[in-house]
């Protein structure tokens, strides 16, 4: 099993050696370990310098403002901060939020928590292809709507939403717009200005960066300040307390720098592999693609396999490290609400697999994956009851 092929990049990705080196520089250098808040001495100031450089790199990739970036422990925290923080900060203007039914749990659960606090939330449903119509978002707006939150790319299907269209609608209605770009950053262009995004959540570990670090980028003109969700030492302009993890932040900076430089060629390469994988399996009976359409990430293939029981399917494909839904769902055992929203039955959801590729996926791995996939599916389907008449 240790020789299994990793096809779960959408859950997390291995660390790029160049990112590792950037982190190690902070971890080893006896001059760079300071607390960035300790600006009374050079250790602290040098550390603050590392953080500032990373902020420029991160903001650079998403066309954000480095001075309006808030470092977090990941996209989960960034989403919580964006939604709960904005809701609290804007509560006087209204208590209604619009989001979609296929957001990441960290958005949905934040919204549910707000509902328990007296806010109202409209969950817009996607169509059967997984696309959320900007018109449906607009229709959900009310005079007391203070925030719209729509993810850029879905973590299960890779489906890309038309956030620029939603951004234009929000701007026209003067409503703040949050985008969870944890899955899309570095895989498609993310431009806060062009997309009219006011708050953007990202993280590093989905792009071969370190786990445990992310950022919320604020637009700065439309929103410069939100209520913190943690309370403490006043770091990060009072929006997020706690000692800044300099090596993690340096790692995230390096991660996004690499994306800035290599995204185009790298995405083309991965798309080629992904398509090769799909072409290798799509003729199998009962194999269907979820969230089809051109508007999806080059890195994700979400397929359902009819006539193969889900657990046995995963058992049969043990030499492929993949996911039955989003990683967050792996331990819960509940059928994916994202695939449900696409109209799949619970049994078919159980027999759905997310294969996600990334920087270190090779052609040889893909060819091996095709063989394994075919062998497993064919083995199970040969058992399928439908073929026998009782």
């Amino acid at each position, binding site marked *: 099993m240790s020789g299994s092929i990793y096809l779960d990049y959408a859950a997390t990705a291995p660390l790029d050696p160049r990112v590792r080196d950037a982190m190690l520089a902070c971890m080893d250098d006896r001059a760079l370990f300071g607390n960035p808040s300790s600006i009374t001495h050079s250790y602290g100031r040098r550390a603050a310098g590392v953080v500032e450089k990373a902020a420029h790199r991160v903001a650079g990739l998403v066309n954000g403002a480095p001075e309006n970036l808030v470092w977090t422990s990941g996209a989960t925290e960034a989403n919580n901060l964006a939604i709960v923080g904005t809701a609290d900060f804007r509560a006087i203007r209204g208590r209604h939020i619009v989001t979609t039914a296929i957001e990441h749990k960290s958005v949905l659960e934040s919204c549910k928590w707000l509902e328990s606090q007296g806010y109202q939330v409209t969950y817009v449903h996607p169509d059967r292809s997984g696309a959320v119509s900007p018109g449906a978002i607009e229709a959900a707006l009310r005079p007391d709507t203070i925030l719209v939150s729509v993810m850029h790319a879905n973590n299960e299907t890779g489906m890309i939403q038309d956030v620029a269209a939603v951004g234009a609608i929000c701007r026209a209605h003067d409503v703040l717009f949050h985008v969870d770009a944890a899955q899309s950053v570095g895989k498609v262009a993310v431009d806060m200005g062009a997309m009219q995004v006011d708050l953007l959540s990202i993280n590093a570990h989905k792009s071969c960066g370190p786990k445990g670090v992310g950022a919320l980028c604020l637009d700065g003109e439309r929103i410069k300040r939100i209520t913190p969700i943690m309370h403490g030492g006043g770091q990060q302009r009072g929006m997020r307390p706690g000692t800044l993890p300099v090596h993690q932040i340096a790692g995230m900076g390096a991660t996004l720098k690499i994306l800035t430089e290599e995204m185009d060629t790298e995405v083309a390469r991965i798309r080629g592999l992904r398509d090769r994988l799909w072409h290798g399996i799509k003729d199998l009976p009962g194999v269907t693609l979820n969230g089809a359409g051109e508007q999806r990430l080059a890195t994700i293939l979400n397929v359902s396999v009819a*006539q*193969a*029981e889900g*657990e*046995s399917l995963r*058992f*049969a494909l043990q030499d492929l490290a993949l996911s039955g839904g989003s990683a967050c769902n792996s*331990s819960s055992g509940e059928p994916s609400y994202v695939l449900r929203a696409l109209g799949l*039955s*619970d*049994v078919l959801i*159980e027999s759905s697999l997310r294969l996600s590729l990334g920087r270190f996926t090779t052609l040889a791995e893909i060819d091996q994956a095709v063989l394994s996939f075919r062998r497993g599916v064919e*083995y199970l389907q*040969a*058992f*399928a*009851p*439908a*073929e*026998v008449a*009782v």
Partner: protein
Amino acid sequence: MAVRQYSPAVDEYFWRPAPRVHGNDIAGAAGSIESGTQVVVAAELAAGRLKNVGFRLFACPHIMACCNWLAEQLEGEAPEALQQVLVQDLRQKFDIPVEKAGKLLILKDALDACYNSYQQRSTKG
């Protein structure tokens, strides 16, 4: 952290299917794909004994392994063996977690249905 690990017996028998030629003198089924588990069992009768016992399955690895093993075990046995299979034995041999009790009962139901079809056939014949 609830890590689902499979016993070596499951690892072994999941991949050891009964021969593909299945008899269908007698047969029984239980469950459905919609409910997540379906077990179909069929066999020939040769000199009053089970022959070419086979399964059609939409089932989890534990049930798959059980059935592959049962196909071996039942071969050449008297039809009564179908209803003498003890869920408890399967649970032990394959180290099946309690939450799968329902699935084991579907298997049991299929075996019983198969034995019923044998009895009906005997009554008719």
